[in-house]
């Protein structure tokens, strides 16, 4: 009984004094401003990623960390369907949040300090450097790679993104 009272007393003291204050202070001390690539250039990148990564059996699934929304894949809200209208602005924004939220600190280093894009899981998995169930999707310098990396490092070139989108497939060429 005295032990029980001691425990509840401790909990009450914590609640009153705010034992979480130290955690809050630590977070504040470590907080820093992060940078992210341009959202305005992202739709071209998103359309390229959608073609190669955003199908319903890959990153067009709600269970994915890097969740992509858009035409041909997962839609953000009804009444849109996978084969319905083109990707909406809201879907571009949701995919943007998904991509830049993966590794925000590492991404900020790439954007701000020109760190090697290879430090991002997005790039490593895309290039097949890191294990990726969807396999290697790009090689250094190919159109998808240039599309994504040019956006990440802030020297966006829309042309390779367009090439990804318009690339012939075995069923449409």
């Amino acid at each position, binding site marked *: 009984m005295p032990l029980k009272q001691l425990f509840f007393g401790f909990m009450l003291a914590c609640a009153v004094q705010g034992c979480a204050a130290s955690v809050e202070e630590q977070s504040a001390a470590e907080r820093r401003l992060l940078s992210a690539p341009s959202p305005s250039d992202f739709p071209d990148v998103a359309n390229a990623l959608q073609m190669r990564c955003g*199908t319903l059996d890959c990153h067009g699934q709600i269970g994915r960390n890097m969740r992509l929304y858009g035409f041909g*894949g*997962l839609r953000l809200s009804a009444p849109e*369907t*996978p*084969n319905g209208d083109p990707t909406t602005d809201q879907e571009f924004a949701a995919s943007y949040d998904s991509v830049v939220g993966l590794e925000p600190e590492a991404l900020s280093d790439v954007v701000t300090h020109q760190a090697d894009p290879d430090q991002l899981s997005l790039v490593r998995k895309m290039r097949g450097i890191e294990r990726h169930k969807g396999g290697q999707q790009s090689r250094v310098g190919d159109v998808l790679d240039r599309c994504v990396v040019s956006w990440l490092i802030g020297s966006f070139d829309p042309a390779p993104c367009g090439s990804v989108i318009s690339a012939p497939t075995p069923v449409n060429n």
Partner: protein
Amino acid sequence: VPPTRVAKRMTRSADARRKCLTLLAASVLCALTGCGDPVHDRSVDALGGEAPGVPKGPLHRPGQPCVLCHSDQGNAPTFLVAGTVYVSADSRTPIDGVQVKLIDSLQHQFVATTNCAGNFFVRPQDFSSDAPIWVTMQRDAVFRAMNTAIYRDGSCAGCHADPVSVSSAGHVYLIDDPTVEKAPVSQCR
């Protein structure tokens, strides 16, 4: 009295035997009770039982995600790709004789044909593919190509389940526009 080296060795040997037996017993128990992936097990359970009058085989479970069971994780022969083709978006009538052509990234091709249940399946030994896989369907003059490629899920119904929703394209069908394309007559009786 300190144990002799022989006694120590015998003790270690007995310990090793005990560990091996424990491991073996755990493995047997796992095999019997199914220590598999509970998420996978729940997905299989959710499919329910066989339809009355349809035995296990090529005609069973049309429209279901075949590769769920027909995989290394499942208990049925492995399929690379498998699914069911229906007449149109509004119809759940299966269509037979549809040639489902798979084309991989290296342009390798394989053609499977739907049966009376609309089912088709491709075994790994039939088609050694390099993903992604593109798909076309044809019966008589009616041709249809899939908009996107298959990257991971060999079950058509994994993405093509009914009803159509934000995360599903609805069932696979051949006739896009019934006013232009005529539904082929089924050869099944």
